[in-house]
């Protein structure tokens, strides 16, 4: 009896040791690979983020390290955000030339559409990209730059041009065209870009001064 328990105990110990050795080897392998690949992965990830930002910001506008300029923006109704979002500040030499804001169009056909909007110091749009959406494939997904160049029409637009009453899709008497069959999606994007410009105009000073991000409620 005793010897049986002893055997069982020895077996359990043996199994445990074997499992431990395997875990050790696997962990060592992972640690090694991780250490070797980490710098490259970090570089790829930064390059990817930078590539996205550079899609909404012409390279001539900045010579600073965009990624290092990131700061948080408190949630705001004009941005459609409920959580703090990110903002990047473009500089050329010593002067600020543009900002990149994250915004959300809450009224897409199937929920939120996440946007990245570049705005220069004078309030002109330098570029817009959709970073996440769930619009119907083939119908509303042409707002995605990989599907069609539709979103490029915002470049150069501002709150002056077109004036607010024309800041709509063509079907509603505005200046932005939208494809037949799907008007809800482009309406949502057009509206969100417009309100993001409003947000920029109202918080311009706060956004462009060095340190404190605008903490006070947006005046209504």
């Amino acid at each position: 009896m005793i010897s049986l328990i002893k055997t069982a105990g020895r077996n359990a110990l043996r199994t445990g040791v074997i499992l431990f050795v395997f875990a050790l080897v696997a962990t060592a392998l992972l640690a090694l690979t991780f250490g070797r690949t980490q710098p490259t992965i970090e570089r790829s990830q930064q390059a990817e983020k930078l590539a996205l930002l550079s899609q909404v910001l012409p390279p001539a506008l900045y010579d600073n390290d965009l990624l290092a300029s990131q700061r948080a923006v408190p949630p705001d109704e004009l941005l459609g955000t409920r959580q703090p979002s990110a903002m990047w500040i473009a500089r050329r030499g010593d002067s600020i030339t543009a900002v990149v804001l994250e915004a959300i169009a809450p009224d897409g056909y199937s929920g939120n559409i996440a946007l990245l909007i570049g705005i220069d110091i004078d309030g002109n749009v330098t570029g817009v990209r959709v970073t996440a959406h769930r619009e119907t494939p083939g119908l509303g997904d042409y707002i995605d730059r990989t599907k069609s160049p539709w979103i490029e029409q915002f470049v150069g637009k501002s709150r002056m041009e077109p004036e607010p009453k024309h800041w709509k899709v063509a079907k509603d008497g505005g200046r932005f065209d939208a494809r037949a069959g799907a008007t809800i999606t482009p309406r949502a994007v057009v509206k969100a870009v417009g309100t993001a410009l409003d947000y920029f105009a109202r918080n311009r000073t706060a956004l462009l001064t060095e340190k404190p991000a605008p903490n006070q409620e947006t005046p209504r």
Partner: protein
Amino acid sequence: MMTLQEFRTLFGNGLSKQNAGLVQLLGLCPLLAISTTVINALSLGLATMLVMMSASGAVSGVRHFVPHEIRIPVFVLIIAALVTVIDLLMNAYVHPLYLVLGIFIPLITTNCIVLARADAFASKNRPLHSVVDAFAMGLGLTMVLVVLGGMRELAGQGTLLSGIDLVFGAEAKSFVLHVVPDYQGFLLAILPPGAFIALGLLIAAHNWQKARAERRVHAAAPMPA
């Protein structure tokens, strides 16, 4: 060493008789999700094949040291570690492709075909046989993936090899074949239902071909009177 006959059997099983995608229907989740283009399908197929070969080789190499009761945890540990290594390597060196394949690379861990080969074959055979078996199985799966990807890409967007620039850099963009110029696009083929329909057609074709081959064998050997 390995005889030619053994070699043949392993390949026959992997490519046709026991094909993971068409006969065993193992690992369908990535098969259906990723086969939207040839490049995606080929990439995931090769990654899976690489995992299978290294996992089978490793399992076979240590098979005498693994007690029967804990073989599954040990195999899963080996597979998960290898998949993570491949995940890290792809993240570092083919980052754009890594973004496209996304969750399906780590999910190779849970692909039943990998564990199935490790447990059913590699844990009972010598390393060389195991690696060859994994290679044949992986190749069979990759072939199905590529054909499926080709069908869906062609029907869905009228191209082949789109996204090749994700692997070989922007210069490779000119390799994309626009088989049908100015194609309207048939979205169904790219969306999930298209994957099921295309796989169904492939399985049907495979069964049809098998049935025909069997009939021919019967016809060649007439029944004794």
